[in-house]
């Protein structure tokens, strides 16, 4: 209470700047007068009496000081004074201030931008109540961590467990034809079990959401109702309230809209909103199944993604332990009844898994989390470099103010007071840099995410992508922490230096004598800058070479001159008719368009990253499995894609569901599976899919890295979808032509429309798809090159600044040298030698650091080792050149020093 009162008194005194000096002076004067009088009475001489009185009172300055500190809050006042002073000093050198703030803004901005990306991608929880209670669980085959369940399995798990307060299963968003207001669009459709919304704690924007009673999995007639996503509602219905009760058609099946979710709700997806949600048991209707129960109760296909909410107090580990112990019984209970033995083996090997789902699923995370970590690392090094650079600049400034500091120290300023003043100056700079950097970060992270979203369409469909980048507590805390840390980091060296200064020698040394300048500290800061630049440039160099190698990669299939035409089926187009004649006709028509060399359907994602790894065995040989890729194609594929036939034949239009099932395999598949014999005519089984058993190898083709141009070609089995009734799924028509996509669009549309079953959704070049598949490498190469160049610039400026400062400081010395007959070229050599020496030391320290750092990115490189000598040599040479340039300009100035002018100076 007392101390609080005292604090407020002092605070108000400080703020109102109430002066008590007059009062103290008067009181002390009176005190001395009374003391003197007393001494006089004791018989002292007047002079002596006053002297004794003053002695008794003690040091006036100290009394005044402690009186002042009692009067107000000294620290506060001193800090305010320092801030005013620092602002004045910074205003006096606008060039320095601008460079400092800009450097910091770039450094802090980059760090904040990448951190907020990391936050949004990896750290941020789903925007639902208590996201930490959500867990993802299910069965997976050993070696593949993707977990899923069949509906009977889900129901069995739910019957036995007591760790969840609720759980639901989702069949995740296939893209379908949807008719809204008489308009046909593509939209993603989720089908869910009844507790989907209640477990996620969602509430409706309008209308109501699905409840367990809406999704009666045992009922024969499912409810045809749908809930819309907020964004979809806004886009398709302009947010009209009267959508409730309206119907929309999914693949020609009617659904009644019952409600809309709130803005920002994205289910268990962190970065993508599904447009429409329907009851799980209504989904078979969309596929035209007459008896939904048959497809719902299938036991051999794990098609659902289950998510549970843990009961309060149940940990993830406990839930996993409990369900793990129940797992063998559950698996036994829901095993498929009639299956081949191979399939039964696979089913019995299924393992149970359960992990936290607090952050939800994210496609962006799987592709871009690693690049973002790398970029965050790069930007941290850039910021460190910026700090070191500013430290050396501040050091030069502090050295120039040595005299001033000397005077202040002599007048009684304490060392901590001097250090505080310099620290305040650097913190002001870092706060300025942070504010600018924060704006930059905001712009940068949104820009980058927009860029990503533009380039990651999937099968031509770009869903409603959302990524919450708004700064949260974590991001703000990170930025504030970085700002303070940088301010202290680059302010510390000069502050430490200034307080070590002996005021006596600082006062004696005028600009006439030779100061010791920034000394070893300044030089070591330069060396650090060079070393850090080496690290950044080496990383940038490796990433650029990686990108170059990827661009020049020969993946074994044709990329240039191929168009990728995405075709979508019109509603009901493939319900029952045999599609072979249609695809034959369409391929023929398009192959004969002007400018087209050939055309073929493919169902994979050529160049795009999605693949289908399978286990293959020789038919009749149990217990020996080979890993292989499976690719779905139609006749003409190998010709169009430039994959050459080595032996046998490729697929023909005469192959159909009734002819023997044929496969074509790649050369490396044959080498692995049939090392000693002729593969043609052999029979193989693929996985447990009953449709893919006893297939005859009819041809062998050359190797190709069809899905990922980074990877060496995998053994591959190709089959003709027309033989298996698997056509009309994810159809992509590959068209070999030298014409650009824009001029092919109309003829292609006309050809597709003339047959009436499919329509053209998009036409792109295959080169674009491949280019987008290396998006992470492109972004890293681009940004690391930018930051590498920035690092080189910063280091060069630092080196230049130090040398220029040294030359100025040594003007007099140089004048004397010239007057005594020194050769100008020897001075040039001397300064260049010093610069290059510093650069070389920096390189010598930086190279091992770079090697250590680049080892961390080995897995992100392509066709280049982390200790690539070409890159490292180029980087070292670049820095040497920069060093020579930074030394040459001040050296030239030194050479031109006029001895007369230099000696007369001052």
């Amino acid at each position, binding site marked *: 209470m*007392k101390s609080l009162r*005292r604090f407020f008194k002092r605070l108000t005194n400080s703020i109102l700047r109430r002066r008590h000096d007059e009062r103290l002076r008067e*009181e*002390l004067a*009176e*005190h001395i007068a009374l003391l003197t009088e007393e001494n006089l009475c004791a018989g002292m001489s007047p002079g002596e009496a006053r002297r004794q009185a003053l002695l008794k*009172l003690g040091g*006036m300055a100290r009394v005044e000081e402690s009186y002042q500190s*009692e009067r107000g809050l000294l620290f506060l006042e001193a800090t305010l004074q320092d801030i005013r002073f620092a602002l004045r000093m910074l205003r006096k050198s606008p060039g320095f201030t601008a460079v400092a703030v800009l450097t910091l803004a770039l450094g802090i901005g980059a760090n904040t931008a990448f951190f907020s990306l990391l936050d949004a991608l990896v750290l941020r929880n789903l925007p639902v109540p208590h996201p930490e209670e959500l867990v993802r669980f299910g069965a997976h085959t050993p070696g593949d961590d993707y977990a899923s369940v069949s509906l009977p399995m889900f129901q069995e798990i739910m019957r036995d467990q007591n760790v969840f307060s609720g759980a639901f299963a989702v069949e995740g968003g296939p893209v379908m034809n949807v008719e809204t207001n008489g308009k046909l669009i593509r939209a993603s459709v989720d089908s869910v079990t009844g507790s989907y919304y209640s477990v996620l704690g969602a509430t409706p924007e309008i209308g109501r959401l699905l409840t367990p009673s809406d999704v009666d999995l045992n009922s024969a007639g499912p409810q045809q109702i749908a809930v819309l996503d907020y964004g979809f509602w806004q886009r398709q219905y302009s947010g009209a309230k009267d959508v409730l009760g309206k119907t929309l058609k999914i693949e020609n099946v009617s659904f009644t809209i019952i409600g809309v979710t709130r803005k920002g709700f994205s289910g268990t997806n962190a970065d993508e909103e599904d447009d429409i949600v329907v009851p799980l048991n209504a989904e078979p209707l969309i596929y035209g199944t007459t008896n939904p129960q048959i497809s719902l109760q299938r036991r051999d296909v794990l098609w659902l993604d289950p998510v549970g909410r843990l009961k309060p107090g149940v940990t993830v580990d406990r839930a996993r332990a409990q369900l793990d112990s129940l797992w063998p019984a559950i698996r036994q209970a829901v095993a498929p009844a009639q299956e081949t033995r191979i399939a039964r083996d696979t089913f019995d090997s299924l393992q149970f898994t359960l992990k936290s789902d607090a952050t939800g699923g994210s496609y962006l995370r799987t592709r871009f989390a690693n690049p973002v970590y790398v970029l965050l690392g790069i930007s941290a090094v850039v910021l460190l470099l910026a700090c070191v650079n500013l430290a050396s600049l501040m050091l030069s400034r502090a050295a120039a103010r040595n005299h001033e500091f000397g005077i202040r120290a002599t007048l009684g300023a304490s060392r901590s007071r001097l250090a505080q003043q310099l620290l305040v100056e650097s913190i002001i700079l870092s706060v300025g840099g942070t504010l600018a950097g924060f704006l930059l970060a905001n712009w940068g992270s949104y820009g980058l995410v927009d860029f990503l979203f533009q380039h990651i369409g999937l099968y031509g469909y770009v869903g409603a992508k959302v990524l919450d980048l708004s700064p949260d507590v974590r991001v703000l805390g990170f930025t504030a922490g970085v700002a303070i840390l940088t301010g202290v980091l680059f302010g510390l060296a000069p502050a430490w230096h200034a307080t070590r200064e002996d005021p006596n020698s600082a006062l004696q040394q005028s600009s006439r004598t030779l100061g010791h300048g920034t000394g070893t500290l300044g030089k070591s800061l330069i060396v650090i800058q060079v070393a850090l630049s080496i690290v950044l440039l080496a990383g940038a160099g490796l990433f650029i070479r990686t990108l170059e190698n990827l661009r020049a990669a020969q993946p074994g299939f044709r990329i240039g001159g191929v168009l990728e035409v995405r075709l979508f089926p019109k509603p009901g187009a493939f319900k029952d008719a045999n599609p072979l004649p249609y695809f034959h006709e369409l391929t023929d028509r398009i192959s004969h368009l002007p400018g087209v060399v050939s055309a073929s359907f493919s169902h994979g994602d050529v160049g795009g990253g999605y693949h289908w790894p399978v286990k293959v065995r020789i038919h009749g040989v149990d217990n020996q499995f080979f890993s292989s890729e499976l690719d779905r194609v139609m006749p003409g594929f190998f010709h169009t894609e430039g994959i050459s036939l080595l032996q046998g034949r490729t697929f023909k239009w005469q192959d159909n569901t009734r002819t023997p099932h044929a496969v074509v395999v790649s050369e490396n598949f044959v080498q692995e599976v049939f090392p000693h014999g002729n593969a043609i005519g052999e029979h193989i089984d693929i996985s447990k899919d009953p449709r893919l058993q006893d297939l005859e190898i009819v041809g062998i083709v050359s190797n190709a890295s069809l899905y990922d141009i980074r990877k060496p070609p995998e053994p591959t089995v190709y089959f003709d979808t027309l033989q298996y009734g698997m056509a009309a799924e994810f159809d992509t028509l590959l068209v070999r032509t030298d014409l650009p996509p824009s001029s092919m669009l109309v003829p292609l549309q006309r050809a597709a429309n003339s047959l009436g079953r499919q329509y053209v959704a998009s036409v792109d070049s295959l080169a674009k798809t491949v280019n987008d598949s290396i998006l992470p490498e492109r972004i890293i190469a681009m940004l690391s090159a930018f930051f590498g160049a920035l690092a080189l610039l910063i280091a060069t400026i630092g080196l230049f600044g130090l040398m220029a400062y040294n030359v100025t400081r040594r003007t007099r010395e140089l004048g004397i040298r010239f007057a005594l007959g020194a050769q100008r070229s020897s001075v040039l050599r001397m300064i260049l030698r010093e610069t290059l020496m510093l650069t070389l030391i920096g390189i010598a320290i930086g190279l091992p650091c770079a090697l250590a750092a680049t080892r961390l990115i080995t897995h992100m490189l392509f066709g280049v080792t982390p200790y690539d000598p070409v890159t490292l040599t180029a980087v070292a040479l670049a820095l040497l050149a920069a060093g020579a340039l930074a030394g040459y300009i001040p050296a030239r100035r030194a050479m031109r020093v006029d001895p007369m002018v230099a000696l007369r100076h001052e």
Partner: protein
Amino acid sequence: MKQKADVLQGTLALMVLKTLAVLGPLHGYGIARRIEQISGDLLAVNQGTLYPVLLKLEHEGAIESNWGASENNRRARFYRLTRAGRKQLHAETCDWEQMAAIIGRFFDVKAEDLP
């Protein structure tokens, strides 16, 4: 010669309060003089250090001050105890005595007294 003792931290304030309680309103010089007398010149006090303490006590509300006339008829600042100051003095006196008693007891204990 006996060494002069340093003034214990905080005790100066207590002395000021007690002085004002006994003698009524006084100026700085008077307070200093009184403390010197009572301590028998054994305490080394730079009399100037008194003034920051007076200001502190005033900020805390234990004393208040006004201008008045000194013995030689010049302007001097007189300090007086407030009600809060009187309470504070009482409390601190009790604390002090208790502390002194405890220390005293420690000194009284002999080895044979221990069980």
